[in-house]
Structure formats: C-alpha cells, structure tokens
C-alpha cells in the first residue's frame, strides 16, 4: 500500500494545487496567508513522499493489481536495486527543489500553486516511471512528466527572453520527447507482441527466447526512443534550450530526474529484454556516446551562457553513461547507474547555483565582466567550484566513480562486444575528460575568480546577495552528498550490485 501512497500523495497534491482558483493561491510572491499555506502544503506533501520513498525502498515494497485487463496491463509498481537509488534521488531532490522554490520568488507567468503543482506532478511521473514494472505502464508513466514540464518551461520560463523563444524551447522539449516515447512505444509493442506479456520481469526472463531479428528491431526502436530522453548525441538539441529557458526548479528536475528516466529506461527495457539486439547495436551506441562526450565538451568550451554550458556538460556526462551501457558488462551497468545518480546530484547542484546566479545577475552571459564570485558571494562560489570540480571528475567527488568506472568497463567490455572499438572510445572519452577539465577551469576562472576580462564596472561590479537560509541549506545538502558519495561509493554500488548481476544473468 505504501507504494500506491507514494504515488497518490504527490498526484493528489498536484491536482489540488493545480485546481486552486487564482483568487486563493496568493499570487506569485506567496506572501499572503493563503500563499504560505500553499507552499507549506507542497512542502509537507513532498516531505511525506520522501519519507514514503525511504520506507518503500527500505522495505522493497511492491503493489500488483489488475488495471487494464484487455491489454494485460497491471498496476504493478515495485522497487529493486536498479531503481531504489533513483526513487530516493527523485523524492529527496524534489524536497530540495520545493524548499529552494519556496525560499525564492516564484518566476513570473503564473501562480505559486500552479508552479508547485507542476513540480510535484513531475515528481509523480518520475516516481511512477522508476517504480513501474510493466512495460506499458512504464510508457504511460514516462509520458506523465511531459505536460507539467511543458507548463514549467512555457509559462514559468526565463522572463528575459521573448515569448517565442519560450514557446520554441517548451515545444521542442515536448515534441522531441513525445517522438522519442512514441518510438519507444512501438518498440515496447514489438516486444510485448513477441513475448506475449508486458510484465518487465517476464519480458526479461523471456528475452533469450526472442528471435534475433525481433530483438534487433525492438532494441533499435527502444534505444532510439529513449536516446531522445537521455539525450544521446545527435538527438540532444532540445536539451540546451529547454534548460536555459526553464526556471531553476525546472532545470534541476530536467537534469537530475528526467534525463535519468532515459538511461534507466535503457537499462530496464532494451538491455534487459532485448540483450542481443543491444549487443548488435552497441558499437553505434558507444560511438554516439563518445560523440556526445566530445561534442558536449567542445560546446562547453565556447558557450557563453552559463546555463547552456551546464546543459552541454550534461550531454557530455550522459555520453559516459551511454558508453558504460554499451560496454555490456556488469561493471558497465553499475557505472551507468552510478553515473546517473552522480550526475543527478551534481547537475542539481550546478543548476541551483547557476539558476540563482542568473536570477541575481539577470542573465548568465559569461561574456559580461562581473565581480569575482569568491569575493562577493563566497557560499555560492564554493558550491560552484565544488560542482565544477565534480563535473571534471575529480577523484573524491561523486562523478569520479561514474566516469572512471565507465571508462574501465568500456576498456574491458563484455565478451560479445567489439573490444577494439570500445577501447578507441575510451581513449576519446579520456580526451573528453580533459575537455571537461578545460571548461570547468574556464568557468571557475571567469566566474569564481573574476578574471573574465576587463575589470567589472557599474552594476556588474555590485556584489550579489549570497545564498542564505533554506537555499543555502539545500546547497549544503547537495555538497555533502557530492563529497560523501565520492568518498564512499560502495553505499550506492552495493544497492544495485545484486540486481545488475541478476539482470545480466537472466538476459543470457
């Protein structure tokens, strides 16, 4: 029952928040009593959700009821090693996002209730996706996040850009991901049609029995569809604009949660249910992953907008995850899952910082000379530096393990993968790491150290208010997580080890 509650609490909260009439929700600033009530309700709901998530993960709970009998779809949600960390990440991160949102001002474009409602609805969709144990249910859950995310970008997006750009970014996000998920749906249907069931466990169990042609078709469709969400180069073009335009909460959710749905989906669906097809396609996957790493890194080197830069770095990081998946080994999958979490934490951290900066500066253009952050806002500066260090994969921080393991796994892949190609990819990936170091240092030099160019004058030289109160608390939590998991990765790796082994074992 806790699983159902885990989904129902945010869902009902979101519906209630969205249905609030405009007169009650207290407007954008939330200074009225009603506004505070709304905020409190959202906070309590997400906190309860997080608590439930912990309970569910700790108890490995599940729910399995008939839902659409005609399609054989069951209301089947469960948590296992693959999804546990993601569920926790989603639930906790949403709390952080809500706290952060409540501490700051609501972006223009709508009421606070709508804003929070959309955030909570995205959480619902993400949780449902990670928990779903039925392929079609997975697809349905996968789609839930689209509309609230669209609203977040379309309506609460960057107020400084013209309306058409917001529309373009939001539309591009929805259309790309809708296209991807429809392709995924077709792939799911191919699988379901061939295997005669839509239960993910059963699908994985019957994977060996599938013909190679079917496997290849299904894997191609699923990978193509999910690659949009990940995103894999060259399907990533929706990501930078969406991230740039979205409000801070939207960016964080996008990067830390939505992208994970893609990689999680790849592990859950094609890798588990059509392993031979994935094996056939793995060279392409690896190449695209590496292309993403390099492309993202190069783009970061020349990108002027800080938010876009972080977005491109996400593309690069996701490239490592894809490379890890392509390796096909147990280590690879572990690396992919770990990289997922790591990127979730780090990108959340970075987007929070960058979002705050952008809000304070009015724009996030690196070309504008500004006062050094380390002097004016040391807390934000610290968070930025740690985040950048994590982005370049510094040992001792959480990202290091994900990327290092990914390269390691690709160097010694599963026996049925092309070793030579993957090793070349590793070399290229290492170059990508170097690029990451270069762009991280570039940003740190310009923003943190204030060495962007000429000495800042006028408004730009004014100190920005530093992060305080709840917002700082959120940043600190993420910083702790970044360092903590970097020091003790086995906390996370241990959770998924068993299930990864099972998954690969079943698949063969």
């Amino acid at each position, binding site marked *: 029952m806790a699983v159902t509650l885990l989904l129902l609490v945010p869902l009902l909260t979101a519906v209630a928040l969205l249905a609030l009439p405009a007169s009650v929700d207290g407007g954008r600033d939330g200074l009225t009593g009603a506004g505070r009530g709304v905020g409190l309700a959202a906070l309590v709901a997400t906190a309860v959700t997080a608590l439930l998530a912990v309970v569910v993960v700790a108890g490995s709970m599940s729910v399995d009821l008939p839902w659409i009998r005609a399609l054989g779809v069951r209301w089947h949600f469960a948590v296992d090693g693959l999804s546990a960390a993601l569920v926790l990440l989603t639930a906790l991160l949403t709390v952080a996002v809500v706290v952060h949102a409540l501490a700051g001002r609501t972006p223009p474009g709508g009421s606070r209730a709508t804003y929070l409602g959309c955030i909570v609805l995205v959480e619902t969709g993400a949780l449902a996706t990670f928990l779903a144990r039925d392929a079609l249910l997975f*697809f349905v859950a996968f*789609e839930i996040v689209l509309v609230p995310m669209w609203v977040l970008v379309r309506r609460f997006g960057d107020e400084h850009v013209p309306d058409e750009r917001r529309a373009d970014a939001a539309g591009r996000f929805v259309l790309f991901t809708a296209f991807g998920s*429809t392709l995924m749906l077709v792939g799911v*249907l191919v699988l379901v049609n061939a295997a005669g069931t839509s239960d993910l466990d059963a699908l994985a169990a019957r994977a060996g029995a599938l013909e190679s042609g079917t496997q290849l078709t299904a894997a191609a469709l699923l990978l193509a569809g999910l690659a949009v969400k990940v995103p894999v180069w060259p399907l990533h073009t929706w990501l930078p604009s969406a991230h740039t335009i979205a409000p801070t909460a939207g960016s964080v959710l996008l990067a830390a949660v939505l992208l994970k749905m893609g990689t999680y989906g790849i592990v859950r669906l094609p890798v588990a249910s059509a392993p031979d097809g994935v094996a056939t396609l793995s060279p392409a996957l690896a190449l695209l992953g590496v292309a993403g790493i390099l492309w993202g890194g190069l783009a970061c080197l020349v990108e002027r907008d800080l938010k876009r830069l972080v977005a491109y770095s996400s593309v690069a990081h996701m490239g490592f995850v894809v490379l890890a998946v392509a390796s096909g080994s147990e280590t690879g999958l572990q690396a992919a899952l770990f990289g997922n979490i790591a990127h979730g934490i780090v990108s959340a951290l970075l987007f929070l910082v960058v979002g705050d900066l952008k809000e304070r500066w009015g724009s996030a253009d690196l070309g504008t000379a500004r006062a050094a952050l380390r002097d004016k806002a040391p807390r934000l500066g610290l968070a930025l530096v740690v985040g950048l260090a994590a982005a370049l994969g510094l040992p001792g921080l959480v990202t290091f393990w994900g990327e290092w393991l990914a390269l390691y796994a690709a160097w010694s892949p599963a026996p049925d993968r092309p070793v030579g190609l993957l090793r070349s990819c590793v070399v290229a990936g290492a170059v990508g790491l170097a690029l990451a170091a270069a762009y991280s240092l570039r940003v740190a030099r310009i923003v943190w150290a204030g060495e962007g160019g000429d000495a800042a004058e006028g408004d730009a030289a004014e100190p920005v208010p530093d992060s305080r109160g709840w917002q700082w608390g959120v940043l600190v939590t993420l910083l702790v997580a970044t360092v903590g998991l970097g020091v003790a990765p086995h906390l996370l790796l241990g959770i998924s080890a068993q299930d990864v082994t099972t998954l690969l074992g079943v698949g063969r």
Partner: protein
Amino acid sequence: MTGGLVIDVGALWPALFPLLGVVAVLVADLVSPRLRETPFVIAAVAAGFGAWTCLPGVLQTSGEVRTSFCLPSGWTVPAASGSGEAVGAAAAAGNCLWQADSLSSALQLAANLSALVVLLLAWPGRRARATDPGTTALSTPSPTSEPVQAVLLLAALSGTVVVAAARDIATWLVALELATLPVIALVALSGGRRAVAGAVQLLVTSLVSFALLALGAALWFAATGSPFLSGAAALGAQGAGVATGGVANAALLSLSVVLVVAGLGFKLSLVPFHAWTPTAYSGSSLPVAAFLATVSKIGALAGLLVFLRAVAALGTPGLVVVAVVAALSMTLGNVMALRQDDVVLLLAWSTVAQAGWVVLPLVSVSALGTSASATYLLTYVVATLVAFAVVALRAREVGVAARRLDAYEGLWRRTAWRAGALGLALTSLAGLPPGIVGLVGKVVALRPVVAEGWTWLTVVAAANAVLGVAVYLRWLRPVVTSVDTPDAGRSAPTVAVASRWGGPGRRGPLVAALVLTVAVLFVVSVQPDLLFGLLG
C-alpha cells in the same frame, strides 16, 4: 406466425427509442408548432432510453449476440452457386438482419450518449431570440425550428444505431444514409451563407459516397449472391471459385471492398475524401459540428466495421488501401490543424487526423483490429465532445470570438475546472497524460499495426503522434498562459453576435453536457478497463 420472421423487439430498443422520439416530436409539433424546449426534452429522453437499452447488449459476454429479424432457415439465401457447407455455417446466426454483439452495442451506446450531449449543447432558450428580425411583436410567430432540429438529430441517431447492428446490405445501406441525410439538413439549417457552403460540400460528399456505397453493395451482391454481410457469404464467393468464375467473384469482391472503403472514407473524412470536413464544421453551428464530429463518425465506423468483419473471413492479409489512407489522413490532418487559429477548424482537421488513427488498426482485418478501432473512436468521441462543450460555454460568453484560439487566453486563471476539462480533453486527443485514455488508445491502435509488422506505418504514426501533440498544445498554450488583465479575452467586439452565434441557449444544459462528458473522460482515464470492457 410460425415460419415467419422472428422479431425480438427487445434487441431493437436502442434504435426504436430514437425513432419513437421522432414520432413523439412530430406529434407534439402537430399539437403546437411553436414549441421550443419540449422537442428537446422528448429527444433527450428518447436518446437517454436508447442508451439505457443498449446496456444489456453491452454487458453480454463476448461471443453472445442479440438478434432480431431472423429469417427461418428455409428462407436462407444460398450463396452464389454452391459451397453448401458455407451456407450451413451461415444458417446458425447468419440469417438475422439485426445482430448486436457487444461491440455493436457499445457503438450504439456511444451514439446515443453522444447525441444526448449534442442535444444538451443545442438546448434552446425559453424566449424567442431577440435578434430575429422576422418576428415583430404584432406578426404571428412562425413555427419554431427546434422540432425540426430534434427530429433530424434523432433520425440521424437512429440511422447510426441501426447501422451498427445491420448485417445485410439493404439495412446497412439505408441506415447509413439515414445517418447522413438529416445531418446535411441540420448543417444547412444551422446558419446562413457559411452554413449553406458547408451543407453543399457535405451534400456533394454524401451523394458521391452513397453512389459508391450502392455500387459497392451491388458488387457485393453480385459477387456473393447473398444480401447478408457475413463471413459465410464472402467465403461463398470465394468457394465458388473452384467451380465457375470464382476468380471473377474474388475480383468483384475486392472491387466492392475498395468502393465501400472509399464511400465510407468520405463519411469518416479520410484523406483524400476529407475536403468537406472543415467547411462543414466551420459553416454549421457548434452542436451540429459536434454531431458531425461524433455521432456521424460512429455511424461511419460502425458501417465500415460491419463490412470489414464480413470480409475478414477471407483472411485478407491486410489492406494496403487502409494503410495508405490512414497515413495520409493523419499527416495531412495534423499539418493542416497546425495552421489553424480557429478552434472549430482545428477540431475539424483534428477529426481528419484522428480518423486516420481510427482506421489505422484496421490494416489488420481481425477482431483485434476492429475492437482497437472502436476503442480509439470512442476515446476520440468523448474527448471531442468535451472540447465542444467547453467551446460552447465560451461561445455563450464571448460569441463568435470563442472560435479564436486567443479566446482561451488565461482560461486557467478564470475557470480552472473548465480549463482542466479542456486540458484533459486536449491531452487525451494528443495522447499525453493526464489524458491517459488517449495514451492507451494510441497503444491499442498501434498494437495490431505492430503485430502485423507494418514498419513504415508505425513510423508515420509515431511522427504523427508528435505532430498531434504539437496541434493540441497550440490550443493548450493560451489556456495555461496567464493574462494579467482578466478581461483581455473578452474584449472582442462581438457581443451582439453572441446571442445569435452562440445561440440563446441556457447555461445549465451546457454545463450538464460538460460535466457528463468530463466525468466519462475522467473515469475512463483512471480506469481504461471500463472502456475496453464495453467492447468485449
């Protein structure tokens, strides 16, 4: 009456109630030709009872059939020149002119309920319209048009209901036209110059469509020698092949299929037979457009299913025609819908696109395909009705300006529930959560296509799913956009037009229609199994 027709009146009630409603309205009109609301009350009651009497048919388990007008076995028409075993198989249930299985009953139920909603949308006001220049205080009031509307609506409804259960070409053909012809008159009666333009387009379309259908039916009769649209008859045509002229018969049969698909393609507004749709929608009043978009489509699909199920017995591997038509409809409909700033036109082109989705599963001529097609149609119908109800409510406030997309600017802030209803409808049409039923509908529609391995079609469908999302998001965008000045949407200088275009109707029935349809949409979104259960 031994040896005569076996007529089970109980099975006929879904069609009889609308017909009785027609008679009742006409009688009421005879008594007093100046009624306004009474005809609609009668019609609503008739449609309501019609829906109620569909339930036994809906609730029967799959495989059961409620029959009526059964010929005694001695009267069975032998299939053309031979194949006695096929005739024997047909004799079991094949010689009933009315066969309502759960699929047919579900379509009948949907038709009755949709007509009820359309009636609510078209509900007249109590007073005579003030803007009517023809009636001054002194002149004798002319007979009202409400009885005519009610009669036409009910007549078209009964045609739709009958066609779903018709199993012989005569009933099938007559019922299809009964479902079509009154609608033309409805369109023509619902407005001025634009309505005439719409009616002319619709007229030409249905004329050609009927000609093709009649020719198709004649060819069916020529090929099979049987008036029954049953698999046995189709098999008879093929079975005769061994003896004489079988090849010719098979060719005739396929020609007949092509003609019928084309004829019904007109009614379903499939590309390339779609041209009438936007003009007719745009010209007619909102309720009539809603009727065209829902009940008419149910009738057309029911007719198509009756025919294709008969052909399915031949085990036709699949119909390339259907695939091509479906792909074209989806693509063109979505592309054109993307260009529209008028919501009625948007809905019209969306009909074209959705019609493509509806026939998409029919590429696999199987039970899976037919029920998938019906499922998709029903989800489309419910969502479309919700959209029309919201537009009607808006039209009541701002008049003809309600047809522009920007009339929905900030709807979320003003009336969250109504905006929520519209959002649910649009997302259902787009196939996005929270309109889960639309999403599930797409799953269901794609399933047979994938199962039969139509790769290119699935790709086209996937691309169109995206286009569709874009289409409906264009409408959803103003809905969620906040307008700082609450009255911005109402500034259109059309208040004078409002009473006429939006109709002087009352608010209550509109709200009732909206609540009814949204409730259905919500329930089937939460528990899609209810919808599938309908279809057996």
